């Protein structure tokens, strides 16, 4: 049964269309990550589900109940805010208990639930402290605790890790995932960080200018990006794009840089001469003495691997990034080849993937 369903959701701010048509269905216990660059409408989508914004069109169903015009507090949804939004004058205990107190739970019930949640999050010893006496990671956990203690049907996360330093972010990321699995609460998680998106989500929704660009599992998105936007957004460093044309009755591509590549996974639709964009991830480019020469202009050693930035010494001077295991090779020029089995083929005109 679908836990949360969004049907034809749209949102305009004046004449600006922020969300154009969102249809989405979350299974019970699923964690769906909404990812996109800033301004893609992802936070607006989350706020509409929370009830903090009203949609211009469309419906929201939570367990088949229409909650489109229900007050945020009556939706049975809890949200973790980017800046945590803890009440600065209340202790950790009071922060977590506030929502329960308003709901009129008894003193014992509140104490019991808060204690239990605090123990789950390792916050028991901080219950008497004020938010400003806590570290960033602890505040983040309190914000999580405030959501968990309400035992909601749906969790909303609005970039909850963006204010943490890198080490803590990695640790908290894993913690959130473990916790979400353990509690089994359906969750919507908004982020602009593609690593978070890949690691946390059961499925990803990539938003681009208010439109869903792709909705699939993280690996599916990574291995079969639906268009050049998704291909460039997911994966770091970003995928390389090479201009090409379709030839030989749709069975091969002629790269502008020179080489001709045969598709090994079947022919593509379209007439010969159609312009294509060929996507190759940095880690899939091979060094090949027979290949195209690449002028190196920057080498970034990362220890276990090396990033090489350069331009093809061929027509178009296409910039290219290569990820090599181990150390950088000697010299200013490399010769590289593009393996046909690791190629993504897109229509240059529409940006859509050619299956």
């Amino acid at each position, binding site marked *: 049964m679908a836990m949360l369903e969004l049907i034809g959701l749209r949102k305009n701010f004046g004449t600006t269309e922020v969300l154009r048509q969102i249809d989405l269905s979350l299974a019970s216990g699923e964690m769906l990550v909404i990812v996109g660059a800033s301004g893609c409408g992802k936070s607006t989508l989350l706020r509409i589900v*929370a*009830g*903090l914004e009203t949609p211009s069109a469309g419906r929201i169903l939570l367990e088949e109940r229409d909650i489109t015009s229900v007050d*945020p*507090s*009556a939706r049975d*949804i*809890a*949200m973790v*805010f*980017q*800046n*945590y*939004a*803890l*009440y*600065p*004058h209340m202790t950790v205990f009071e922060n977590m208990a*506030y*929502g329960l107190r*308003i*709901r009129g739970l008894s003193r014992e019930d509140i104490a019991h639930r808060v204690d239990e949640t605090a123990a789950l999050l390792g916050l028991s010893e901080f219950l008497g402290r004020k938010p*400003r006496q806590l570290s960033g990671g602890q505040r983040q956990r309190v914000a999580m605790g*405030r959501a968990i203690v309400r035992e909601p049907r749906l969790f909303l996360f609005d970039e909850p890790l963006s204010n943490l330093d890198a080490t803590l972010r990695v640790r908290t990321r894993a913690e959130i995932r473990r916790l979400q699995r353990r509690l089994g609460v359906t969750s919507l998680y908004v982020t602009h960080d593609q690593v978070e998106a890949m690691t946390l989500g059961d499925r990803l929704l990539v938003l681009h200018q208010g439109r869903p660009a792709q909705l699939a599992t993280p690996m599916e998105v990574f291995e079969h990006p639906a268009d050049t936007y998704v291909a460039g957004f997911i994966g770091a460093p970003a995928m390389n794009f090479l201009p090409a044309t379709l030839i030989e009755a749709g069975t091969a591509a002629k790269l502008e840089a020179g080489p001709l590549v045969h598709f090994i996974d079947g022919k593509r639709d379209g007439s010969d001469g159609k312009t294509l964009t060929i996507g190759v991830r940095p880690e899939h480019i091979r060094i090949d003495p027979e290949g195209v020469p690449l002028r190196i202009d920057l080498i970034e050693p990362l220890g276990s691997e090396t990033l090489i930035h350069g331009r093809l010494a061929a027509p178009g001077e296409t910039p290219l990034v290569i990820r090599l295991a181990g150390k950088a090779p000697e010299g200013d020029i490399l010769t590289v080849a593009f393996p046909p089995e690791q190629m993504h083929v897109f229509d240059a005109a529409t940006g859509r993937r050619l299956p």
Partner: protein
Amino acid sequence: MNPRRDPVTHVVLLFGAVLFVAPLWLALVGSTQDPAAIARGDLSLLPGHEGFSAYARVLAGPVPRMLLISLGMALAIAIGKIVISVLSAYAVVFFRFPGRKLAFWLIFITLMLPVEVRIIPTYSVMAGLGLINTFTGLWLPLIASATATLLFRQVFVAIPDELVEAARMDGAGPLRFLWDVVLPVSAANIAALFVILFIYGWNQYLWPLLVATNPKLDTIVIGIVKMVAVETETDWSAVMATAILALLPPVVVVLLMQRWFVAGLTESEK
């Protein structure tokens, strides 16, 4: 920095301190001297021989009642101003209603109309309400405050939107949010404003002079002026003693709320 190395700063500081303390000292020593001597112009800079007899004399008269009237008026003005301006600033900041901008600007332009400018129409309104020569008449027209409303508006605007939204998701209604979150978060500002407004109310002169002619409603400030007015028989040590007594309540308020006062004016972290 070693403070001893900067004599110039210290001299300036000392000069400033003396400048502020001198009148107080004069009043204090004056209150312990022979009133006749003061009237002759022989005000000694050292405490006189009368001790605190002037205080006993003053406290036996109408001064305690005046202090009480002043205290009541100052408290009513300070609290009334805070209540009204908190509510109006809360409405202007957190609610979207038609005419919100207009309401804000109407409040704003009343800044340009101090008590003295609107004193005649205010008097006529009070007369219409039958509040001339009543205690209510002393404070009621003074409790609307554009300054305080604007100040609270700034404080409330600084409350992060996320906090408002978190409270909405927690199920807090508007009044509950005001009481549980907005007021505690602005407590330092409220305290600071209370001190300023209390002193403002305590020092009111023109309005009480106009609206209350009944001597039973004389405030302490008016009481002092009336004591001086009868030139030939002015009991100067009594005047000085009353002035010192009139200083005490504001000093107590400032001392009690000092910590809050400074925090409210300087603290910016929310």
